[in-house]
């Protein structure tokens, strides 16, 4: 069973690495930021699988923290990196 969970974790890790393609290629900044979100969600899955495969239930706390902070980077992106454009649009209206 441990090998099975580890195998699924390898598969999810490959999925993450495919997401790197989108970070490097993705034409807009939102594409790239979305990948940070993908890393977070898939990271939660990988950590929970590792917790089961390594038989260390305390690692689920790490997954809890990942899930809690999942949106924080995206919120910072929308409020701090992007508003320059939004302010320009709002002022124009």
């Amino acid at each position, binding site marked *: 069973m*441990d*090998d099975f969970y*580890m*195998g699924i*974790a*390898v598969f999810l*890790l*490959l999925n*993450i*690495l495919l*997401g*790197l393609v989108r*970070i*490097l*290629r993705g*034409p*807009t*900044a939102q594409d*790239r*930021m979305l*990948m*940070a979100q993908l*890393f*977070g969600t898939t*990271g939660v899955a*990988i*950590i929970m699988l*590792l*917790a089961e495969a*390594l038989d*260390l239930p*305390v*690692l689920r*706390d*790490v997954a*809890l*923290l*990942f899930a*809690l*902070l*999942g*949106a*924080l*980077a995206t*919120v*910072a*992106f929308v*409020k*701090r*990196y*992007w*508003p*320059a*454009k*939004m*302010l*320009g*649009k709002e*002022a*124009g209206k």
Partner: protein
Amino acid sequence: MSTIAWLFDGLLVAALLYLAWSLLSEQDLFKAVVLFIAFGLLMALSWTRLQAPDIALAEAVISAGLSGVLLLDAVGYVRGEKRPASTQSEAVKARRIEPVRTGLNLLALLFCAALIWAVLNLPPLDSGLSSIVQAQMGSAGVTSQITAVLLNFRGYDTLLEVAVLVLAAIGCLTLREADQSAAAAHSREPGMQVLDGMIQLVIPVMLLVSGYLLWAGEHAPGGAFQTGAMLGAAGFLLLLGNRMHFQQIPGWLLRISASLGLSIFLLVAGGIAISGRSLLEYPVSNAGKLIVLLETAISISIGSILIILFAANPPSASSPTIDQATPSEDTTEIGSK
């Protein structure tokens, strides 16, 4: 170790190396920041794989939350600026500094090789100092070895670390510009109700998890630093969502919360010194209570210091990147790519 585990480790290491290389050589700063966030998440995965839950907890909060937010805020200031291109266009300059760069590269490679050689030559089953720590756990006051080392056996290091953090906060506060009226105009941006709703749901859970991490630090992975980082992340979320306004926090509250950890640590150290023991040698019967007190004070301090580091320098009214309605470079990228 099974082949699947080797495959996992190999993929992880290759991904880390590739990410590190690409984010350092990236021209577009925003791309580099997103790669850095991804790198931090993979680092947290690595710590989890190495079965180091305390470090993994800290890395998860710091990479997924704190450093991502700080870097995105910083790169928002420098929108549109590219990293200085490599010196291939300046032929003379390139010829002049080439030997220095090659020399430095060789030095770095040599150092890397020396590190790898040193790691490969470590005795395979050496437990380091953990047997000594194990022997002393009776007088530690807590059951978690890591907390015992951090706050009891090597408490002096932690004291100095907290002092460094307080100094950083003081430095940041002195750099703050006096008038922040532009940042004080908290207009309700359209479409932020979802963010408000999420904040209302998530912040209580964050506070609960902070308390859990603080309590768990005694016997399980957790402790002051993870709690402080979580409190800092909660503060970041409030600041970003316009629920907490940094200018409206009374100055005395800022000062007290930022210096709480250091002051209580110094008081404890002073009290112990007065009673004639050596540096930070807790009396065995009270060690547990002292450690709980110190952990609480340190986590409050770390949380407020992180909030100060993030919020003390909001964009001023004269910041050029906010005022100009620059033509959107990203919508033109769709056509070109």
